[in-house]
């Protein structure tokens, strides 16, 4: 066989893995983003309604088709796609649904937010769609180049979204802080990737690989060389970069300021999708390339878990701004989720599903609360204090009820979804014998009840008369029917998930 024949054979072998159909949801989202641009260009006066409608309806269609296909074919059958860049798994299929659902809800919150602001509308939906497509790719990437490109598409999209309120110094300042800290964490992650690449490609070491950015090749290399210093440093740096995404201590400094400055829908997007993306990457890493290095990852992540849970809950105690409360309590939620990750490294197979289930309960609980927040926010989006919720039960009983369900779920009150989510995480932690971490997590949950209920108490029990000139605080709030339906649906799902978990609960 001569040289050119060999080359043809090799290239055919690679081309056969380029199955574009496997990426249809991402491609459809990108096309939808272009469609939104065109609608904005040609729809004329209709555009204010047509753009959000097209964005949400398009995503609902993709979501429905994806949900219908779930479980009909095993994604593992297709194996590695695009020469090892993409590896679809059952987990990543479920996460695709998660990101789409979150994106639909972000677009819905965006409608509420943009109504009160003098800002261009179309770009918000366009960016949300593109970021979501990148998030879906991120969950399936099995090569560090793919991971980096998808992660940066997400991050750069978020830079723009955080500073979207360009008339507000708070939004711009939040954007700048996210930019500087996000850029630094990207560089740290990249340096880690480079060290891993260099170590695993070293021809003088056993099991070195010519394709050392690939997760599979890296896993084989680390299994054969568990004491390589370069690879160990690289691994720690990569984990640091991912910990920034999920907001684990000591990489949480950006969270309170960015969450407060960002427009409320973007805060929700950051809290739910960005955090979930960090966790799906973490799951892929610890079950894939970093699997052989459990002796290093377990102590490291355990320490981060303890500090994260305590820090998040203790700092949230004294906060009066509700966006900061959501941010800081989000750090604590990241801590509970890390508990599941540590259990996963210890070999508890169910832990990955416990993490995914918790992310879903967090999605429903958070968006319920963010929906209420979007209704109560004035034109000053960053200024949302707990005091603004005083007498909410009298002004708008529906919002108060929905808020109570959302906050109760986040706090983990039975029988709501958040309670079951926490139980699943604690069960897998128990199976992995992580008693110390379990104790810290339970302590954290107890502390969290204090500040979540403080917020709820303002809404329900605080009877206060307002001084002159502040009567608008007592005016009833109008909620349109579609928004009422959406929030009621979220609240009902939160209750139902707490009672019935379907296939999810079967393994426990």
């Amino acid at each position, binding site marked *: 066989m001569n040289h050119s024949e060999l080359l043809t054979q090799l290239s055919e072998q690679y081309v056969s893995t380029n199955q574009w159909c496997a990426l249809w949801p991402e491609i459809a989202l990108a096309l939808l983003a272009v469609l939104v641009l065109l609608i904005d260009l040609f729809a004329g006066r209709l555009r204010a309604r047509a753009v959000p409608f097209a964005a949400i309806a398009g995503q609902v269609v993709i979501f429905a088709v994806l949900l219908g296909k779930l479980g009909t074919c095993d994604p593992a059958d297709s194996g590695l796609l695009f020469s090892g860049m993409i590896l679809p798994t059952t987990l990543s299929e479920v996460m695709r649904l998660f990101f789409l659902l979150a994106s639909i809800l972000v677009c819905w919150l965006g409608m509420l937010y943009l109504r009160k602001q003098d800002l261009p509308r179309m770009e918000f939906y366009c960016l949300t769609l593109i970021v979501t497509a990148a998030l879906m790719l991120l969950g399936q990437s099995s090569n*560090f*180049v793919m991971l*980096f*490109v998808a992660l*940066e598409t997400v991050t*750069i999209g978020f*830079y*723009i979204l955080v*500073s979207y309120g*360009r008339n507000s*110094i*708070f939004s*711009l*300042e*939040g*954007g*700048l*802080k996210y*930019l*500087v800290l996000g*850029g*630094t964490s*990207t*560089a*740290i992650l*990249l*340096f880690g990737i*480079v*060290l891993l*690449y*260099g170590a695993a*490609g*070293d*021809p003088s070491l056993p099991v*070195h690989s*010519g*394709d*050392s*950015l690939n997760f599979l090749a890296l896993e084989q290399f680390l299994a054969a060389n568990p004491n390589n210093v370069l690879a160990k440093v690289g691994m720690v740096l990569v984990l640091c970069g991912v910990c920034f995404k999920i907001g684990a201590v000591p990489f949480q400094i950006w969270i309170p*300021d960015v969450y*407060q*400055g960002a427009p409320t829908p973007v805060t929700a997007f950051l809290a739910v999708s960005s955090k979930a993306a960090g966790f799906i990457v973490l799951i892929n890493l610890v079950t894939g390339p970093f699997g052989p290095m459990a002796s290093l990852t377990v102590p490291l992540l355990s320490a981060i878990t303890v500090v994260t849970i305590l820090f998040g809950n203790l700092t949230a105690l004294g906060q009066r*701004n509700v966006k900061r409360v959501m941010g800081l309590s989000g750090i604590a939620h990241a801590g509970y989720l890390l508990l599941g990750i540590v259990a996963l490294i210890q070999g508890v197979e169910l832990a990955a599903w416990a993490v995914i289930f918790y992310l879903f309960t967090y999605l429903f609980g958070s968006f319920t609360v963010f929906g209420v927040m979007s209704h109560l926010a004035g034109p000053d989006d*960053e200024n949302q204090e707990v005091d603004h919720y005083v007498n909410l039960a009298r002004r708008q009983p529906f919002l108060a009820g929905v808020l109570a369900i959302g906050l109760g779920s986040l706090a983990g009150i039975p029988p709501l979804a958040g309670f079951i989510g926490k139980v699943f995480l604690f069960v897998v932690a128990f199976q992995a014998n992580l008693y110390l971490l379990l104790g810290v997590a339970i302590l954290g949950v107890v502390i969290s009840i204090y500040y979540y209920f403080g917020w709820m108490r303002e809404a329900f029990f605080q009877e206060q008369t307002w001084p002159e000139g502040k009567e608008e605080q007592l005016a009833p709030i109008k909620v349109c029917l579609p928004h009422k339906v959406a929030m009621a649906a979220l609240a009902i799902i939160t209750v139902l998930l707490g009672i019935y978990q379907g296939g999810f609960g079967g393994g426990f």
Partner: protein
Amino acid sequence: MSTVGLNAYLFVAGLLFALGFFGVLLRRNTLVIYMCMELMLNAVNLALVAFSRFNRTMDGNLFVFFIITVAAAEVAVGLAIIVALYRKRRTVQVEELNALSN
């Protein structure tokens, strides 16, 4: 044939990375902080090219192009944010950008 060894490249890359990192932490002007971030990315590029050359694989060289492209996108967005903020606040000094801290 005498060439510069791998460790020399890695040392320079590590040095550049540390310079960038501490620059981000210690400098007070947003634009200088921004330049320090670019320095960190270029340190990564140098290390990638060095590894690629000494390990005789092409992946590293290819990855550099992705990093350069992404860095360009990041600069475009970042400078836009800094300019918008400057128009509002008339300053790019870190200590004066404190509307969000409490």
